[in-house]
């Protein structure tokens, strides 16, 4: 029991465990939508977050794509940031030590264009790990770079091979971030499980496009980009549900979450944690708003622990019998 409110109602237990790691609540902020913490800190008490998944980091710094990098679309946005990042050396010399000052968990997201680069980046971070670095999220799903991880993320064998390789290099949490840009996410979830991943996170952005009808030109310089925001939530939810049916490892749900209610849907569908992405751009404290709202929801619904929601989808017997 975490404590009792003055009205006598018990506060719900918000804690979540991923293998040996205990998070104070199920709400993380997603890679690429919270920088490296320093920028958003002014607007968000980051110690109230379960943790921060840092911007994808590669071996060398990447300048990112030329403008225009973002376009708003219906209830969402397209981006082609192109994995702009400081490179792993600056990441371990500046960003990790800075983040070590806070009472929150850090998950380092890695992007690369070859097996070796993924491994080298991970091992370099491993050598410079700070106490609150609890694991890695492997981005095999960025649609916005020519040589990016998507070639891994859309190939089951390569996904499994990469996961096996990285598993051998770390005892920290290993989370594989999956793409929705595949016919079925199920074999990917299973490949990650077979190769020893601790969890999978999904979804990354969907390939999308926007066109200026007067100039006939694509609105993004990379022609297509990654779609995120509330527009993608139903897709993300379905993919979490399909992954839940396919594998037994924990799932971190991502995609269009802006509220506690959105989070509850993901938990019911089978995720045990969530990540807040695009919503941070509108409210830099979106993560803690969601965490607070979730605690209130649990209390109002008399649910004693957030874990009770996880994978609690009820599909009526006759629907199941009919094959749904």
């Amino acid at each position: 029991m975490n404590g009792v409110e003055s009205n006598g109602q018990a506060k719900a237990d918000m804690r979540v465990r991923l293998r040996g790691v205990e998070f104070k609540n199920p709400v993380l902020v997603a890679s690429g939508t919270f920088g490296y913490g320093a920028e958003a800190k002014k607007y968000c008490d980051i110690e109230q977050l379960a943790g921060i998944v840092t911007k994808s980091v590669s071996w060398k710094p990447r300048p990112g794509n030329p403008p225009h990098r973002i376009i708003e679309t219906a209830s969402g946005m397209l981006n082609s940031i192109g994995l702009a990042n400081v490179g792993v050396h600056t990441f371990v010399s500046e960003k990790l030590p800075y983040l070590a000052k806070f009472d929150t968990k850090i998950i380092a997201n890695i992007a690369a264009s070859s097996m070796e680069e993924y491994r080298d980046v991970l091992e370099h971070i491993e050598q410079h790990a700070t106490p609150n670095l609890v694991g890695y999220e492997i981005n095999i799903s960025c649609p916005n770079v020519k040589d990016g991880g998507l070639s891994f993320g859309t190939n089951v064998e390569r996904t499994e091979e990469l996961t096996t390789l990285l598993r051998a290099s770390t005892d920290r949490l290993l989370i594989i971030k999956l793409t929705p840009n595949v016919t079925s996410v199920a074999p990917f979830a299973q490949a990650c499980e077979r190769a020893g991943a601790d969890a999978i996170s999904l979804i990354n952005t969907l390939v999308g496009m926007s066109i200026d009808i007067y100039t006939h030109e694509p609105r993004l310089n990379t022609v297509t980009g990654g779609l995120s925001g509330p527009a993608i939530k139903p897709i993300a939810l379905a993919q979490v549900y399909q992954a839940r049916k396919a594998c037994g490892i924990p799932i971190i749900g991502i995609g269009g979450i802006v509220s506690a209610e959105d989070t509850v849907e993901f938990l019911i569908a089978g995720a045990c944690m969530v990540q807040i992405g695009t919503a941070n751009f509108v409210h830099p404290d979106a993560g803690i708003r969601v965490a607070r709202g979730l605690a209130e929801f649990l209390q109002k619904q008399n649910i004693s622990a957030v874990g009770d929601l996880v994978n609690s989808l009820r599909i009526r017997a006759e629907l199941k019998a009919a094959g749904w």
Partner: protein
Amino acid sequence: MLAPGLVTLRFHNPKVARETIAGQFVNVLPKAGAIDPMLRRPFSVYNTDGDEAEIIIQAHGRGTNILADTAEGEMLDVLGPLGNPWNYKSGDFKTAVLVIGGVGVASMLLLTRALVKEGLPVQSYYGARTKDLLALQDLTNLHVATDDGSEGFHGSVINMLRKDLEARKIEQPKLFVCGPTGMMRAAAVLAAEYGIPCEVSLETEMACGIGICQGCPVPTDDTTFQKTGKRFRLVCMDGPSFSAETITI
């Protein structure tokens, strides 16, 4: 209404009103709580007065149309002040020359006030397509240009300024430029020709306005900066105003 298509919104926000320095902006939600449109829109802080602040909206798209229709008493969701101020204390000039196009006027009132406070003379060069589109409040030593000649100089504001620079009418000028991209580019070229300092205030798409999305890059020519492996600066954090020679507009 200042001029057709321009709407002023005044709102209570002590933080923005008390902390904004000329050149900073706020990021405003078209509709508080809505997810479509979802992103905030950036606007220069036009005026501050006690605990209240004002922005000028040029209604031309989804978000700005919604904002321009904001009813009296409605809540505005405003994040700010954001970005860096105009560098009006650079000390490398004797006369501040404000070069203004269209709604760029929104960042000039606070700048004028700040310059006057510093005891620096101000000349304002302001261009619009036609005279009805000029929003002329509170500008000092105003020189007006209209594309159709309906008021002031007939032609572009840059050509008007070029004439005065040629005639050496302005003592040790520094240009502070805000307007359409083409105008800012032309102003930067003009400043380079005359070897005078020039600062431009850029407008790019923005998602966050606080440096977390990387969505607002501007290519930079600054070689010391490029040594860090970066080729872009962020308009929201490193700008919105930049010394013209350091970036590619």
